[in-house]
């Protein structure tokens, strides 16, 4: 077992200016938002350029980092004092953060390019690119920050970008509602993260990753560490759409498709996994918290898969799949150093093949007049070959077709889980089978079978600016897994940042262990079932009323209904009661007091009846009282 390396102070070199990665897209966003209509013409090019610029810096930093000794590969440097005496803003470039940076800028740039085509007809394309740039900057801040506060700022920054992009077509009430929901549900998670950060600060007196080594965290009680772990997990659940905070992700598909690809598939939703891995120093000494992480992961991977099985909306189907795949990553992240490399590896390959499929779905929608219902697709393979082929490559990668990316990373997670806890392992295998089913269903319904198009649909292949990113992504979907996993290349690369397990797992080009065989068998069975129901058989253009299970899955496992019944309605009642109480209770008391005084004076002023004789009478009484008092005092 090897602990993570010490974080070293850095200066100079490309890493010394790696803050440019954040600054460039941020600048882009600022220019596009403040520049207004003047920048309409070239705004999208600026957006792409800034993203590519960040990518270049990331690559150069990566090269510089790999040129260092492995135990010197955690480089941190301070930018400025943020909150004096508490937090200094700084950057941490280590194998973990640079992997994320490469994924974010790389896939991000491809999606930027794709969006030029996809959003070409939207009058607000400039704003869209501004938000995308903002997102990239925030996401990079999240992963590159060397402390929890910086991470939190990025964390909320991506939340904001997500809010803005989901609600990009804000004139649609559904989009606005979905955006709002995403933000608020995320805030619940952020609440947990915030309290977690508080606990870290009060326990350890520092929020910098460099100070929170395992030696330091080991001094706290396990209870504290478990609490910190669970609180951070709550944050992770919010951002990564894990149970029980999953409900926002499906609604988030209201946003434009490139957004779904970039934010709600490839990068932002994986931030939770990053958080858990980055906080390994806490989780690894709190087994209970780790166990909860794996349970949440497994539960979500099954829930997401079940939801995916029933959705007819292609984007929602993919969203369910995303949930499910992040569940795998969470599971891996909960397994400690043995699972980290697979989790992050799966995260990266997933970033490629899921972005690939989302963009493919976008391409299909683009061709089908923004139709998202798969029951209105069918037989699209012949008309849009590039899209179809790249989509199918992504499909094969996700179901874990041997030798493709997903196979290595997912299989790694399943094997590690199996060693750790057989129940979790088998449930993960079951999830893989479900993946085989719903993804095959999607392929068959979309690209094969009979045409069920709407009358005015004239599908056509998308322009090159949209297909080239698909091609590049699909190359990643094919080869990246093998590149990373075979020979534990990625595990060794990450080790300075996250440590190594006691013994390195063996990796084979074909890893047909019992678990892998079972997985393959289940996936094949799932695919076959999908073929019989959706490939060979007729697919009705209108969804039939399914069984209870189907309805259960279609309604997102009643997650929304549950939220509504448990939180929303009581909340509404609470609000109404509070408003009533405030108006009638607190303010009523105040106004009542005022009215009481007013009424008393109103009655009291009747004494002033205007008759001088009455006044004289009271004067006489007063005089008598004075005389009486004088007498009394004199006699005392």
């Amino acid at each position, binding site marked *: 077992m090897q602990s993570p390396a010490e974080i070293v102070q850095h200066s100079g070199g490309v890493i010394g200016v790696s803050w440019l990665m954040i600054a460039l897209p941020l600048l882009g966003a600022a220019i596009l938002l403040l520049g207004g209509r003047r920048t309409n013409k070239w705004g999208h090019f600026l957006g792409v350029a800034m993203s590519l610029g960040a990518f270049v810096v990331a690559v150069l930093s990566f090269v510089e980092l790999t040129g260092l000794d492995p135990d010197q590969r955690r480089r941190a440097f301070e930018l400025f004092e943020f909150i004096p005496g508490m937090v200094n803003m700084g950057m941490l470039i280590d194998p973990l953060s640079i992997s994320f940076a490469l994924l974010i800028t790389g896939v991000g740039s491809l999606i930027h390019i794709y969006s030029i085509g996809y959003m070409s007809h939207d009058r607000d394309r400039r704003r869209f690119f501004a938000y995308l740039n903002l997102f990239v900057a925030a996401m990079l801040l999240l992963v590159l920050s060397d402390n929890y506060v910086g991470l939190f700022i990025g964390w909320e920054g991506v939340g904001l970008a997500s809010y803005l992009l989901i609600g990009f077509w804000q004139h649609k009430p559904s989009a606005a509602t979905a955006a709002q929901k995403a933000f608020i549900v995320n805030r619940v998670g952020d609440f947990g993260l915030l309290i977690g950060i508080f606990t870290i600060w009060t326990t350890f007196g520092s929020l910098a990753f460099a100070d929170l080594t395992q030696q330091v965290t080991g001094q706290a009680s396990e209870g504290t560490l478990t609490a910190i772990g669970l609180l951070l997990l709550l944050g992770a659940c919010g951002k990564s759409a894990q149970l029980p905070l999953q409900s926002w992700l499906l609604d988030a598909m209201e946003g434009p498709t490139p957004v779904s690809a970039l934010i709600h598939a490839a990068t932002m939703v994986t931030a939770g996994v990053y958080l858990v891995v980055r906080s390994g120093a806490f989780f690894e000494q709190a087994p209970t918290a780790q166990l909860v992480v794996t349970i949440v992961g497994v539960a979500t991977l099954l829930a997401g898969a079940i939801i995916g099985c029933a959705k007819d909306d292609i984007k929602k189907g993919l969203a369910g799949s995303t949930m499910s795949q992040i569940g795998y990553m969470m599971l891996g992240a909960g397994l400690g150093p043995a699972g980290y490399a697979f989790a992050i590896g799966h995260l990266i390959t997933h970033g490629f093949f899921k972005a690939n499929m989302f963009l493919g779905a976008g391409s299909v929608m683009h061709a089908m007049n923004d139709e998202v219902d798969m029951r209105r697709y069918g037989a699209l393979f012949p008309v849009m070959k590039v899209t179809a082929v790249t989509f199918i490559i992504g499909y094969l990668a996700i179901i874990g077709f041997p030798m493709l990316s997903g196979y290595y990373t997912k299989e790694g997670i399943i094997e590690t889980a199996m060693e750790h806890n057989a129940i979790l392992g088998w449930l993960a295998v079951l999830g893989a089978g479900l993946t085989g089913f719903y993804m095959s269903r999607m392929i068959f319904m979309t690209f094969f079978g009979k045409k069920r198009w709407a009358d005015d649909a004239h599908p056509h292949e998308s322009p090159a600016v949209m297909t080239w990113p698909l091609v590049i992504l699909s190359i990643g979907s094919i080869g990246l897994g093998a590149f990373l996993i075979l020979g534990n290349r990625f595990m060794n690369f990450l080790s300075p940042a996250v440590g190594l397990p006691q013994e390195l797992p063996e990796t084979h080009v074909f890893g047909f262990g019992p678990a892998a065989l079972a997985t393959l068998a289940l996936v094949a069975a799932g695919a076959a079932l999908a073929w019989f129901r959706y490939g060979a058989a007729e697919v009705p253009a209108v969804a039939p009323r399914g069984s209870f299970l189907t309805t259960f899955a279609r309604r997102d496992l009643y997650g929304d209904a549950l939220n509504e019944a448990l939180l929303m309605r009581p909340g509404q009642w609470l609000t109404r009661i509070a408003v009533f109480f405030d108006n009638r209770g607190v303010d009523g008391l105040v106004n009542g007091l005022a009215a009481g005084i007013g009424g008393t004076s109103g009655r009291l002023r009747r004494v002033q009846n205007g008759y001088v004789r009455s006044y004289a009478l009271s004067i006489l009484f007063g005089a008598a009282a004075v005389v009486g008092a004088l007498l009394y005092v004199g*006699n005392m």
Partner: protein
Amino acid sequence: MGETITFWVLAVTSVAAALGLVFSRKAVYSALMLGVVMLSLAVLYAVQDAPFLAAVQIIVYTGAVMMLFLFVLMLVGVDSSDSLVETIKGQRFWAVIAGLGFAVLLALAVGNVAFSPATGLGQVVASRDGNVPTLAASIFTRHVFAFEVTSALLITAALGAMVLAHRERVRPKATQRDLARARFAGPQPSPLPGPGTYALHNAIDMPALLPDGTVAVTSINRVLARHEMEEGFEPTDPEKAALIKQVLQKDDARDAEPVEGDKPIQVKDALQDENALSEEDGK
């Protein structure tokens, strides 16, 4: 001994007169009663070594002030007597309670003190050869400032009274000629009809009837009518009562209007009003 007798006689007299002042219905009686109290007090001053004050009391109070009261009473109406109905609830009861209580308290206060026999003013007066010179010396030496202020007060009061009671004449005073002309130019050159003519009663408070049996509005005596309406002695004939009320209301409305300056010939206005009224009647 002489003083005691004088005191008791005058004390009884003055208290009785004071009560009379409070309880007599007619203001003139009250004024006379006040005069009695003042004279009694003047004598009591004299008894108590204050001859100058006694004189002043008679001259200023009983002479000047009381005359002033009587003049005003004449202006306001000598014969009017107050209504005995108390309009403010509980006023009388509480007034008597307060008055009695106050008197008792004062009496108690006085009674509680054991006075030594009076020093008397003999010594003080002797040094200056009599009460008046001594008082004068005091007024014009020690209290000269207060005295001068009083004089200012009196002048101010005199001025104030003149300003308050004065009414500016804005038109030349009407001569007899003007009055006659106005009368003949007006709608009714003849005298107003007397009351009670052709009526069942010849009492002065009943209006005259015209040949057709209707009331002659111009014959209504305003003062009496008002008095009777206020006291609740309305004519039994509801028609007449209504008519009287109407006339009075008309008067009230006119009174309520702001008075500007001195109206030279009141008669004319009154006649015009009456004319308008009878015209209304005709309709």
